[in-house]
């Protein structure tokens, strides 16, 4: 749980943003960019010293620990500011409690010398995840295109790729228009920043605790719960994985991929018919809603199986009951104007959904090794995968198939346990009976 971790992110942000500072955010951040670059160089050099001392003493001296802790906090403040996860201009010292999106770091603790000695290698999976979420000098280049020895090309120090970069880009328009940061964007950035802070702290020997990739949100102070969602994720998975089916997972998915493609052709035609029908009648016809809901569920099942978010071989009908599943609300009235331009409106969500596929791929890749070695899928990875699947299903349901008029919620949320016998109850959601 995040509260028990030695590296915790605390959010005290009211989502308000100053249009003026948002408009010039990158220019305003130039002094911080330079300072972050210099501090990063210093951190790298001192990391070698810390590595040697850590191996000899089995813990970091207080002075070095505080230096790296300040660096982790500062980098989080800096990225939060640049990516619009927070509003005020940050200080240059990384002082604790000085910023709305802050990092609490526990004091120095003894660490195993062996893990210190091989820290860089041990951190590789975490670096891969962090580079997918938020590109930093230590977290690789993500999607920046040009790679150099930093792994991130010329924009790496700005987070030149990854999920966070796209969110910051999209949020810039939203903040300029509404003077508010969308809640989902802020929470997703918080997740990325938290993971990056944990990874950096682990890499620089601040803590021996491995980063937790579970996207369960650190709730912002004053926030009232997650907004209601028309497409909800349920997870009833015990984490066990069959090594044999894990080893051959890609090929075992082949028949499903073939069937998914064939069904996808029919779904495309149904989506077109659903769009026309929704424009005419103001709500999706039940039969098309049921058909497309089953397709969305089936997509989730297949992706969950392929990327090891779930264990058992899924069925071919998209029937509810798979360990990683989505519940979809019954058809509801939808504004005709919004329906007419749905694809256009869904463009940001489609872009983000596409970028999150990278995270799902990383989850599958790392989970493959972990599941083969231990016979279990790490819970954090599993939940990260479930989050991307939930968002993908919401994007499909909103943007492509018009199953709901509710915009996808991009923030992480803890998946719900499946309700007991939810599908046989009278009045259960229509999708559940599909």
């Amino acid at each position: 749980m995040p509260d028990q971790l030695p590296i915790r992110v605390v959010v005290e942000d009211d989502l308000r943003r100053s249009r003026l500072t948002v408009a010039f955010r990158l220019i305003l951040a130039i002094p911080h960019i330079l300072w972050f670059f210099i501090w990063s160089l210093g951190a790298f050099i001192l990391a070698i010293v810390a590595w040697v001392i850590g191996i000899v003493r089995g813990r970091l001296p207080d002075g070095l620990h505080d230096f790296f802790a300040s660096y982790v906090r500062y980098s989080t403040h800096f990225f939060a500011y640049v990516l619009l996860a927070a509003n005020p201009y940050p200080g240059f010292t990384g002082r604790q409690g000085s910023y709305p999106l802050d990092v609490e770091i526990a004091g120095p603790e003894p660490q195993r010398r062996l893990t210190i000695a091989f820290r860089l290698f041990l951190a590789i999976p975490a670096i891969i995840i962090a580079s997918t979420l938020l590109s930093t000098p230590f977290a690789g280049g993500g999607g920046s295109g040009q790679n150099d020895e930093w792994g991130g090309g010329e924009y790496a120090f700005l987070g030149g790729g990854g999920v966070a970069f796209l969110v910051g880009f999209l949020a810039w328009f939203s903040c300029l228009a509404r003077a508010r940061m969308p809640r989902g964007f802020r929470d997703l950035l918080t997740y990325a920043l938290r993971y990056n802070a944990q990874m950096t702290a682990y890499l620089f020997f601040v803590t021996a605790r491995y980063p937790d990739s579970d996207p369960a949100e650190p709730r912002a102070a004053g926030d009232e719960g997650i907004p209601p969602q028309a497409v909800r994720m349920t997870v009833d998975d015990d984490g066990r994985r069959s090594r044999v089916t894990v080893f051959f997972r890609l090929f075992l998915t082949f028949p499903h991929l073939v069937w998914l493609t064939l069904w996808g052709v029919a779904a495309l035609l149904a989506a077109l018919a659903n769009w026309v029908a929704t424009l005419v009648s103001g709500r999706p016809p039940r039969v098309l809603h049921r058909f497309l809901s089953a397709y969305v569920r089936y997509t989730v099942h297949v992706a969950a199986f392929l990327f090891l978010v779930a264990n058992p071989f899924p069925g071919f009908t998209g029937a509810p009951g798979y360990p990683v599943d989505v519940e979809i609300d019954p058809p509801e009235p939808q504004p005709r104007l919004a329906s007419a331009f749905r694809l256009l409106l869904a463009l940001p969500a489609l872009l983000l959904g596409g970028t999150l596929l990278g995270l799902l791929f990383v989850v599958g890749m790392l989970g493959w090794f972990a599941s083969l070695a231990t016979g279990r899928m790490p819970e954090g990875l599993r939940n990260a995968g479930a989050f991307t699947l939930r968002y993908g299903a919401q994007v499909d349901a909103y943007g492509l198939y018009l199953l709901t008029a509710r915009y996808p919620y991009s923030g992480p949320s803890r998946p719900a346990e499946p309700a007991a016998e939810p599908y046989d109850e009278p009045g259960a959601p229509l999708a559940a009976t599909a």
Partner: protein
Amino acid sequence: MPRPRSALIALALAGWGLAAWFLWQTEVPDDLRLPHVEPGDAVSAGEERAASDFEEFLRFDFLLSQVAVVGALALYAVFGPRFLRESASGRIGSGMLLAMLGLAFVWIVSIPFSVAELWWSRRHDLSEESYGERVLGGWLALGGEFLFICLAILIVMGLAGPLRDRWWIPGGAVFVGLAGLFTFVYPYLIPEQEPLRDPALSASAREYARDLGVEGVGVRVERVGELTDAPNAEAVGLGPTRRVILWDTLLDPRFSDDEVRVVLAHELGHHARDHLPKSIAWYALFAFPGAFVIARVTRRRGGMRRPEAVPLGLFMLVALNLLALPVQNAITRHLEAEADWVALETTEKPDAARALFARFTTEALADPEPPTWAFVLVDSHPTVVERIAMAEAWAERGGR
């Protein structure tokens, strides 16, 4: 046994025998007596020993791999149903999962033998394929096999649902249809094809095709030289997709133009004598009884409509294939002998044929006279000695 059923079985057996007799007929004269030929008449003692040693290793590798595969599948037939707990799918989906896992085990068990075979071929300069390519290629091919087995399971379990133990009747027909379909589309699945660019050989191919009444059958060259030095050719396709595929290794200076002409005529002979449709017909003769046996044996697990029966069905399929191997080899040898005869009749070049067959020993390390058990179990072509003897028999008869 009730009388009508006995009569039905007798009728089926008679029909099977009659069909087999018709399919067995070839143009090779019934009174043809092959002269005795010693391997030493065609190749040197050293070449004979090298080929014999080479094939001996491959034979044992093959035998051991078959034992390992059958053993693995026997174990899987017992323990495989445990993997049902890894499925959240219905009966057909679960059956697909168990079938794919069965193939996966077969692949794992086969890897050492496949690597050993490659090592041996590389050692004798017959293959330039890397070990990585072999294993990775096998792994990728496994994906295709998974799809095929899923289709097969879909058909079998889909039919076994409503038809119970009688699924084998339409099931056999569907599989024969699929075999025909696969034969039809196979030419399009062969990679790296290019036209035969040698004008003289092309002209000969056209002339032979015209003589044999298969004018529409073209010749393509498959580029395999980067992987192997072994020579090969095949007749592929059905109806409008018929063609002859020559490996580019046949077109290098080791083989004379006349020798390549014999190969061309041999492959065109396969098409002229309808060997591919006949092979499908032979397949049908085995597919129906095979499916029947699988349906009967799997009844103890609830029949093929139950996913629990799939591992046992898979084991039976492989075991039956292995048991039928000597008969299948006999049939293919028979067809190959006819193609050799047609090639001799068409080219009228027995000397080139003799030289070509001898070169199979010197260039491809084909054992000129393998032991009987290997001949029966492994060899799908007549031996080099038999083929040379046929060329000599044709010459002794004075051609046509």
